[in-house]
């Protein structure tokens, strides 16, 4: 009950703090509160629900990047921010899909300056895709070792047990080789 009340009154400021603390509850709340709006925007502009999901998730990533980079000022509603980002992203995608869709979504004007955020987002996105590709090429078990150690911060001890290495040093050597290969792949692509 108390949870329900808290989520219904939670304002934008709380959401920002939640994001800074990596709260899953906040993410769920954000999703519930704003996804319908984006769904409506996309559906009424030649899109389907999968497009809406993609666009909305991208906009959330942009929002996370912005908040975590530390220079986020709450000078408009989060809803407005998300809406602007989604609108821009969708417009862009429509333009890519077909050159002859004359691209003005007849809706609110652009209330937020989100140019920088979008540029940053694109750059990051390219890097992430590169990393993903490199990891794919790396193959097992290197991929899992790297992910476990560097992304989930598990200890070398856990990893060597999981993969059945006789001691942590062997695991370390294996990890070192994997990392070297990953670097090579990453910078080659």
């Amino acid at each position, binding site marked *: 009950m108390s949870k329900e009340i808290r989520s219904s009154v939670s304002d934008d400021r709380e959401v920002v703090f939640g994001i800074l603390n990596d709260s*899953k509850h906040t*993410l*769920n709340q954000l*999703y*519930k509160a704003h*996804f*319908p*709006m984006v*769904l*409506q925007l996309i*559906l*009424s502009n030649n899109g389907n*629900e999968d497009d809406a*999901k993609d666009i909305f*998730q991208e906009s*959330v*990533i942009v929002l*996370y990047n912005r908040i975590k980079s530390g220079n986020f000022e709450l000078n408009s509603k989060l809803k407005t921010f998300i809406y602007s980002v989604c609108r821009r992203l969708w417009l862009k995608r429509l333009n890519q899909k077909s050159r002859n869709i004359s691209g003005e979504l007849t809706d609110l004007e652009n209330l937020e300056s989100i140019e920088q955020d979008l540029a940053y987002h694109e750059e*990051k996105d390219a*890097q*992430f895709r590169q*990393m*993903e590709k490199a990891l794919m090429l790396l193959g097992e078990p290197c991929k899992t070792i*790297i*992910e476990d150690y*560097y*992304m*989930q911060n598990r200890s070398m001890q856990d990893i060597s047990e999981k993969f059945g290495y006789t001691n942590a040093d062997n695991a*370390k*050597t294996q990890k*070192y080789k994997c*990392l070297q290969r990953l*670097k090579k792949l*990453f910078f080659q692509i």
Partner: protein
Amino acid sequence: MKSEIEIVSLIEAYLRNELSTEERGAFERLRNEDASIDHKVVEHESFINRMAEFGQHKQLLADMDMAHQQLDIEQLKADVLPVSFKIRSLFRKYRFNTAVAAAVAIVTVFATLLSTGYFSKTITNNYSALRRDINNIKRSQNQLIKGINDNPSKGPVNPGQFGGTGFALSSNGYVVTNYHVVKDADSVYVQNSLGESFKVKQIYVDPAYDIAVLQITDSAFKSLGTLPYTFKKSGSDLGEDVYTIGFPRDDQVVNRGYLSSLTGYAGDTVAYQVDISVNPGNSGGPLLDSRGNVIGIINAKQTQTEGAAFAIKSNYILQSIGAIPQDSLEVGLTVNKKNSLAGLSRTDQIKKMKGYVFMVKVY
């Protein structure tokens, strides 16, 4: 010199703050001394950060997918979409067909209106030209009568397909009637009050004013003698007593009435409206005022209104006569200017007029 693996694990431990203070101090000294180690530290740090970011990114995506799965997308879709969306998408789909259908409908409507004569003013339901359709029974009766009388006229015995009235323009055989009486005629005869028929030819027609000028070409025709009436050039006054002589049947019939309006059907300025009882066959008859001036020529009446007949104004007759090129006429057409009816009583006027009004028979 330490192996590459050891250096990397040292760097990692350093970056993760897993070194003790002594080890850390030693490593920082090493880093200051050896530029290549420093370089490696920076490089490794950025790469590890990159991977960490990637990890967070993937985590976020996974979390969002979780959140997404909790939502009932179909329900949301139904909620957010406006009710008219279905209709709008239907409209988008069929708007071209709709446009074509609408265009066809418009064309059909106008074509129908045009073909039924909705746009032409002269043919209207409650306006009927007073030309007489002579039916077959009448014709057979007439044949009998004409047989008994042993009629001396040379004209055909049968009374014609249509009948109207005409009256003399001049003593040498010019007759005026309505255009609609002689329209589409094969041949036209005029018959005087004595029952004599003469063949005529059309000299001039003016469909706009509904006027036709005929000339008697029959060899049996002799001069009519001086006309007793004149044509009035100026307009007449409302309420003036008028009468007409015509052939709504096979004998002359006189009707009287008064001028009720200076304009004709639907404000037509070419005609007068006359409150007079006229019937099919009166078309082309002269409309005379009390002094024996011809002020018009009866041409139609309004069917659903009592006492509304129409007569073309006499100055349009004069205009039509003026429009006939005189060179094309075999004998000159001069309009009578001397009125000998003025001052006579109505019955005397009619007696004098009698010989100058003809039944027009159209075959």
